[in-house]
């Protein structure tokens, strides 16, 4: 790989929007009266993210996150809470699999408008070592949603 190509990929990864969500995370903090809270840790880097949510019927009425981590995991969590609040569990499941496909390198998913600003994280696909950072909050969400079915 040419050095210039790699430099471009770094630029695509660390977009302004990602750094903005890292520095000014949205919906960050605990959620009083949460129906589910799930903490997910990445022992390799010490990152940890907890996802807190409250349902209104079949809808996720409120979604917040807490914890600490790198810019990718924090921005992913922050943008996730923005996009998914107000969506039904079914819609969330679809977006979740679409997001996973995108960070695993699916080009069609990277163009999918339903992912909204999360498409800014499409560059992660070029950094296999960082895919788990992007998925940390989503894995926590998946576990939280699974509790609902129990």
């Amino acid at each position, binding site marked *: 790989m040419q*050095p210039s190509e*790699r*430099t471009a*990929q*770094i630029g695509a*990864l*660390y977009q302004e929007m990602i*750094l903005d969500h890292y*520095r000014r995370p949205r919906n960050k903090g605990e959620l009083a009266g949460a129906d589910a809270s799930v903490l997910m840790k990445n*022992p*390799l*880097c*010490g*990152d940890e993210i907890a996802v807190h949510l409250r349902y209104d019927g079949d809808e996720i009425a409120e979604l917040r996150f807490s914890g*600490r*981590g*790198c*810019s*990718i995991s924090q921005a992913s969590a922050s943008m996730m809470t923005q996009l998914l609040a107000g969506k039904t569990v079914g819609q969330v499941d679809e977006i979740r699999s679409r997001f996973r496909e995108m960070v695993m390198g699916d080009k069609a998913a990277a163009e999918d408008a339903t992912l909204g600003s999360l498409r800014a994280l499409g560059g992660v696909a070029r*950094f296999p*070592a*960082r895919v788990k*950072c992007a998925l940390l909050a989503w894995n926590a969400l998946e576990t939280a949603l699974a509790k609902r079915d129990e």
Partner: protein
Amino acid sequence: MITRRNDFPLLVRNPELHYLDSAATSQKPRVVLDAIRDFYETANANPHRGAYALSVEATDRYDHARRRLARFVGAGDPDCLIFTRGTTEALNLVATAWGRRNVSRGDEIVVTALEHHANFVPWQQLALETGAVFRVCELTSDGRIDLDCFRSMLSNRTRVVALNHVSNALGTINPVAEIARIVRERSNAIVVCDGAQGVPHLRVGFDDLGVDFYAFSGHKMCGPMGIGGLIGRRELLETMPPYQMGGDMVEFVHDDRTTWNALPHKFEAGTPNAADAAGIAAAADYLDEIGLDEVLRHERGLVSEADRRLREIDGVTIYGPPPAERSGVISFTLGDVHPHDLATILDGDGVCIRAGNHCTQPLMRRLDVSATARASFYVYNDEGDVDALVEGVLKAKEIFGHAAV
């Protein structure tokens, strides 16, 4: 300054690569790769088994490697050098074979907050299994063992003291000989030294060091992965039960009992890793040819330069003692830029550093960080690698913006 880069095929193949993760694993010089290949091409047979000449040759090569390594680490009795998969297995061997038989409820085990998980968890678990007390010696603010704290933890109840020779996370070189003396004055404990980061950089001199067990790995000293060693005092090894059971480690197997082979075979069950033993012996030759004093002088020159230049960057925090008291390691953070982001940005310019907790979560808690960035230098690095590191950190700072750094 010596340039050894051309001795390393991977670095020759990747001229743009700045490999600064030798504390995780070193690159391998051609002579080591050749030695491994040579074993398989000219001497491959199962050592200690065959009555035929080729097996005898394989045995000779394996025995030679043991003698060579024993000389390298300053152990006068080669039979007290047990080949293992690496440091981790060597430490587990001691914690299991010596620990289970000699540690009981009310005894105390002392480790330091500087330990790699491999020299922390086996002892912690031994304590939990036996009901022994597990103590963690605290550090000074610059990442050295606090000797006052250490003295206060020793008593006639102390059975084990476990510490590293050189910290993998900070590069701190510990005064192992002095610590061993302190232990002898105050207790009858055994001293177990994790030498994974010591052997690649320092003349160990096991017989004069004063410790009872010393563990090391081949892959951090230019040798192959999957081989390392445990050196122990003969009187301790003789009384210890075997760690694993199988072929080669037995003497007579009766239906109802078994007697054990002599040292070192008692602790080497199964077919030995003779090819990698040849490789690690070649690595010892390679390092001796350079001279370990020169190795340390070279890497310390680079790490001092990196230390000086990184310190000039606003927002950089460096952990650990001054470079003169470290091996080739520099551990640092840059403002609120997460070390993983830093490592990704450096990787974009071909600079390989480690980011994470370095298998030292107890240390990270005490430093009050979740992770650090770590660059580690070795024989093949040069000033160009320092330049690339510093430029990469400046680039990360630019990408993340100056304001919050």
